């Protein structure tokens, strides 16, 4: 019903049907493909326009490599923890025998939270875990725990990671809940009939089936965190040198002193998020084999 074959007339005048895609194709070419290609090509160009690998080589300096490394670490930590917590929460709701009525509000809330990124999110966490934040003050006055003295700072690796979790966990919940709902009861019963314990069922049946979905979502979360600019800038200003912040400063004022090095940094971002997404798509195709 859904994919009705095209009318026969369409085939006879095939070249004309392409005209229908012209506005869309033009828009994509001008405002998505061309700008991206400009960056990619620029990364391999000298200011005069010749081909060079110097820009890419220029990325391998301590400060830039460091910024990539911090970015990758934050993205990795926030997506790993986000996957774990998101999975546990989704599993608790879907498989934990909780009343069904909380499922829909949880999904709605996840939709809100995963979209509540950017500048406002940074302020929410400043008000909570910042020097005068709700939780910081509460812990200090009620329990005598001084987060600051313990080395915690919201403008740091862990501060940023905890903040990113606010949109990472809901994204995981949104994507993994349908997968968990796709686990068939028969599989569990079949495993139990064969004498499997709950641990064995999870280790040998459920997790292998869910694994591509989990790992795929992980890759998506990774790309998501890696490209996040606004939260980081609003939270840390320029005190933490992650790639998006450096690139932002570079676009604004050429802080690296070489415009083409900026292209190379942007190109590096595309490569990292691109690889993460290829992994996501590949694993998603694999996971859909079982969860249909």
């Amino acid at each position: 019903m859904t994919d009705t074959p095209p009318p026969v007339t369409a085939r006879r005048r095939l070249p004309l049907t392409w005209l229908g895609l012209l506005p869309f194709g033009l828009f994509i070419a001008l405002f998505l493909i061309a700008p991206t290609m400009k960056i990619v090509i620029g990364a391999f160009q000298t200011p005069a326009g010749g081909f060079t690998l110097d820009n890419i080589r220029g990325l391998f300096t301590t400060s830039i490599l460091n910024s990539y490394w911090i970015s990758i670490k934050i993205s990795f930590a926030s997506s790993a923890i986000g996957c774990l917590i998101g999975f546990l929460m989704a599993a608790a709701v879907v498989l934990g025998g909780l009343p069904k009525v909380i499922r829909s509000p949880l999904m709605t809330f996840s939709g809100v939270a995963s979209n509540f990124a950017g500048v406002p999110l940074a302020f929410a966490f400043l008000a909570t875990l910042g020097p005068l934040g709700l939780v910081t003050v509460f812990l200090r006055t009620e329990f005598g725990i001084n987060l600051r003295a313990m080395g915690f700072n919201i403008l740091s690796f862990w501060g940023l990671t905890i903040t990113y979790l606010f949109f990472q966990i809901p994204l995981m919940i949104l994507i993994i809940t349908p997968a968990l709902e796709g686990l068939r009861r028969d599989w569990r019963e079949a495993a139990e009939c064969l004498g499997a314990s709950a641990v064995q069922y999870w280790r040998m049946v459920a997790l292998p089936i869910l694994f591509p979905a989990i790992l795929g979502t992980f890759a998506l979360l990774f790309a998501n965190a890696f490209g996040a600019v606004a939260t980081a800038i609003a939270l840390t200003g320029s005190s933490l040198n992650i790639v998006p912040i450096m690139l932002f400063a570079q676009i604004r004022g050429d802080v690296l002193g070489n415009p083409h090095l900026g292209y190379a940094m942007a190109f590096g971002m595309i490569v990292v998020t691109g690889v993460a997404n290829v992994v996501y798509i590949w694993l998603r195709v694999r996971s859909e084999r079982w969860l249909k």
Partner: protein
Amino acid sequence: MRKAASWAILLLGMAYFILPLIGMVEFSLSMKRGEYSFEAYRVVLADPRFRETFMYSVVMALLTIAFGVFLVVPTAFWVRLKMPWIRPYIEFVTLLPLVIPAIVIVFGYIRLYNTSSWLPLTGSLTGTNALLLFGYMTLSLPYMYRAIDTGLRTIDVATLTEAAQSLGAGWVTILAKVILPNVLVAVLSGAFVTFAIVMGEFTLAALLNRPAFGPYLQLMGANRAYEPFALSTIAFVITWACMGLLNLVTRFSKFDKAPR
């Protein structure tokens, strides 16, 4: 036992989400020492810069939705009707803005459409506004296309088109009077997500130097103590409202269609 553990996990998780929101609201209410008041909100709402940037973002969001619908509905319709084999490729392209970080896209815009290029969009105010609009359309494309394409799947595009054609309707009439009303719910759900995205967007507006709500919020955050928290609370309410309406609309649509 399992139930108790599930409740514990869920409640702990929810605590993580709710504490920052409480912290944010509490801070926004404590501008006056020793009591809760809406003072920060009063100051913010009285700030002409707030009204300007807020209205700018609202107008941009509405324009993004209008142009987005104008671009996506005919395309998705045409693909479903005439060239279904190309649909996976189109879908892949529409997902690209999720892969390429927004900061990279806008970097490309700035370099490609600068004053010395063949299309100097950043040279004039109108041009820059248009560029920002196109950027927002690009960012919302994954959500818009997906929503509308899903909506088109639930109706029989080919039959509706043929019926309209045999009554003498042209393409514009078909799109405006037959297809659009039928996918209105899908269009609305795409529109709400777009609205939420544009209202909170920071990177594009900041790098194109346009006075939108996101950069204003960041600027306030760097200079004021309590106002940014009031603004963040307002931003959160907007996101909530958009997602709430989205939910309402999709739920409404479930009862809207007779089972086939």
